[in-house]
């Protein structure tokens, strides 16, 4: 699967990076989501060994944490790319060509929507609306909205980065 190769973190490093997060939340009621958010912030996604370590510290089955985390769209279980490319597929963008943009970006990056490139440079996603339908069709790269006119530039920039 694309992006499943995470940068290797040693067990010691993992424990060291988790320690401050755990000490912040241990003993607090109702803090699981905040805790998981901090873990994701630290590692970029909910790293499996980190989840196990958190579950052990909370004396909960790890399935319980996955049950909570998988409920929310904000949590990721695989590494994410350094650049998140979101194609808006809302009504306005759809009518004005979002499917074609998606096809193009998928071809350019060599991944399908929802996946991450092997070099962890890009994650490609579709979103339902980014709230600027007047600019449709739009793509977001990180938190920058990219308009249609600029799209070719973006693609070129992406290509350059890849090289």
């Amino acid at each position, binding site marked *: 699967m694309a992006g499943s190769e995470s940068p290797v973190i040693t067990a010691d490093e993992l424990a060291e990076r988790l320690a401050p997060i755990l000490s912040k939340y241990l003993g607090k009621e109702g803090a699981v989501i905040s805790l998981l958010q901090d873990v994701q912030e630290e590692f970029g996604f909910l790293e499996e060994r980190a989840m196990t370590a958190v579950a052990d510290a909370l004396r909960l*089955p790890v*399935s*319980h*944490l*996955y049950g909570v985390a*998988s*409920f*929310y769209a904000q949590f990721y*279980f695989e590494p994410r790319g350094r650049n998140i490319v979101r194609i808006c597929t809302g009504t306005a963008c759809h009518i004005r060509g979002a499917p074609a943009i998606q096809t193009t970006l998928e071809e350019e990056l060599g991944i399908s929507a929802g996946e991450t490139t092997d070099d962890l440079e890009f994650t490609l996603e579709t979103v339902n609306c980014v709230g600027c339908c007047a600019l449709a069709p739009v793509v977001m790269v990180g938190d920058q909205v990219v308009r249609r006119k600029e799209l070719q530039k973006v693609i070129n920039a992406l290509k350059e980065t890849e090289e």
Partner: protein
Amino acid sequence: MAKEISLSIDGRTATVAEGTTILQAAETVGIEIPRLCYFAGLPPSGSCRLCLVELEGQGRLAVACTQRVKDGMAVHTRSERVDEARSFVLELIWSTHPGDCTTCEKSGACDLQKYTYDYDVDKHRYPLHVPDGFPTAYDDPLIERDLSLCILCGRCIRACREQSQGILDFMQRGMATAVTTSLDKPLVDSGCDFCGGCVAVCPVGCLVERNRKLRGREWELESSATRCGFCSLGCDLIVDSAHGQIVRTRPGEDGYLCVRGKFGWDYLASDNRLDAPLVRSGGALEETTWEEALARAAKGLADTGSVAGIVGPNVTNEAVKAFGDLVTGSLNGETVALSSGGSSTGVLATFGSLKALADLADLERAKKILAVGPALAEGYPRARLAIKRAVGRGAKLIVIDPGDSELTALATLHLKPPAGSEADVLSAIGKALIMGDLHNADAVEQIRGGADAAARISEQEVPATGIGPGQITEAAKLFAEGKGVLMAAGVPCVAIRRGAALLLLTGRVKGSLLLPYAAANPWSGVLLGADAGLSGIEAKGLVVLGADPAATGSMPSASFLVVQDLFLTETARKADVVLPLRGIAEEEGTVIGAGGKLINVSAAAPSDLPATWQVLADLATAAGKPLPYASLRDVRTAVKDAIASLEGELQFPSLSGAGDPGELRPYGRFELPEPSWVARSQIRGGGVAPGVQGRAEEVAA
């Protein structure tokens, strides 16, 4: 005592304790409220909404499985409103369920099938919607999962958390919700220990035992209760059979079976079972009649001039008693040895009394638990559950184990000596008990040799174990008082003796020593008296019952060999006469339970073979000296008398390991079969010939 509350349910008056739920209160007056997510013994979740009932004076329907009763409450469990609400709930659930009842193993015992019938939900008013992404098949061994049939009741999640590893939860959300493991991994990679608790509570056909498939429909099953024989803890077991063959096993009242009890039964149904006697003819074993085989056996043994017997720990007391009488009486033999290495007599000599032995109930009630050895947590899951429950009620747990396990995670104190030095740690704790005056001096005085033993223990030089004196003292203080149980497995018998001394030092002489053992009836050797062990056998004629000494290289040489066993074992292959044997689940009689009491077992699984005591009696008759038993009842009476005569005076054990059989046979972790369950059973069926219940041991080994 909790306050009593009276309420009316469908016009009947129920009087129940405060805190009871409406659903439970209804059951006390014989009204069963429909339920899918509720399961007695598990915490209620109130999620399926099928148990809705109407409360007089309340606008909204109430959830009967979670709402507690109130004084004067008037409940209606059937009314137009209630029925309409339940039908609607069922229609919604039904709209996500494919309903392939013709081929579903659960058909006939499916709660959804029952309720859709009861409430006449016969059409998909809402179009069938089984969301994409629900796997209909997983590669898991033993348990078949088809999530398209799942109705999201969550019983399996709660059962897994209550009694096992807690590996399941609701994953994702909305229409994509699925009950599965973390990251939807296979069960085997999720820490599942395959107790089958999830299967036992699943109301529909989503979770099914692989090995029961296509063996019989639910309405064809005949159920019979007995005790599981895979280890000496003897869990309640129900055997379901159809068409003269076993279909599956399930937990009895206790609600729990481990992987062996739940899935290990299929050795009984193996094609490899012996079903007719064999006699050696021209070098090969050939099938013959019982008469011919018994006559050959009697004559062959008589011709040798000297006979000895070897019996295994997986047959009933009645079989052991009849065997002892056959060998020493009818065949004029001298020795009857236990294949399990004299462990029962050796260990019981520790106390001189069977009353010292503890069972699971003792363990669950204990306030102090001292668990010794590495084989406990994984080898005996039911004991692990008992400890978990005891600790949940505030019991203190001391674990002596070189490694970490699920038990050590529960421990108040975990001592980690190097492997093999557990006995010395126990000696050190004993010494600390006396030095710190934490022992029960009065109780010690009452025991024969007590004062001497206490003096010896306090004066002994205990070799260093790497455990500091602080921890030893802490352990002594922790263990000193309250109902205490010492449990040991996978350690040398000398450790058990020294542990037993600790129990006597603290005055715990009853129900305090739990020694789980990888066999159904390990203490049955006490019915035979002294036991010289296999190495002491010099007779030329040998009778072996339910034991396979050749497989362990401890087979004495013999010129004429008679073997009775389930399979053509390594020992049986060398025999002159081979007699088929019933498995412990196919035999009526008694075993000596973990608590030292006689426990009834029944012929719960079907068998065409004669009862073992009867075969042995027939052999005695063929030898010209019949046994003094006309029926099983006669043998049972003899067993009871023999057990009663065993109650000796309590004594301190010798603290040396002299004459010990080494180690009680422990179960290790039940390793899952490779490459797949089916292939593995075929391999078993085709070649490996396990002894009585050897199948699970073979897998465990």
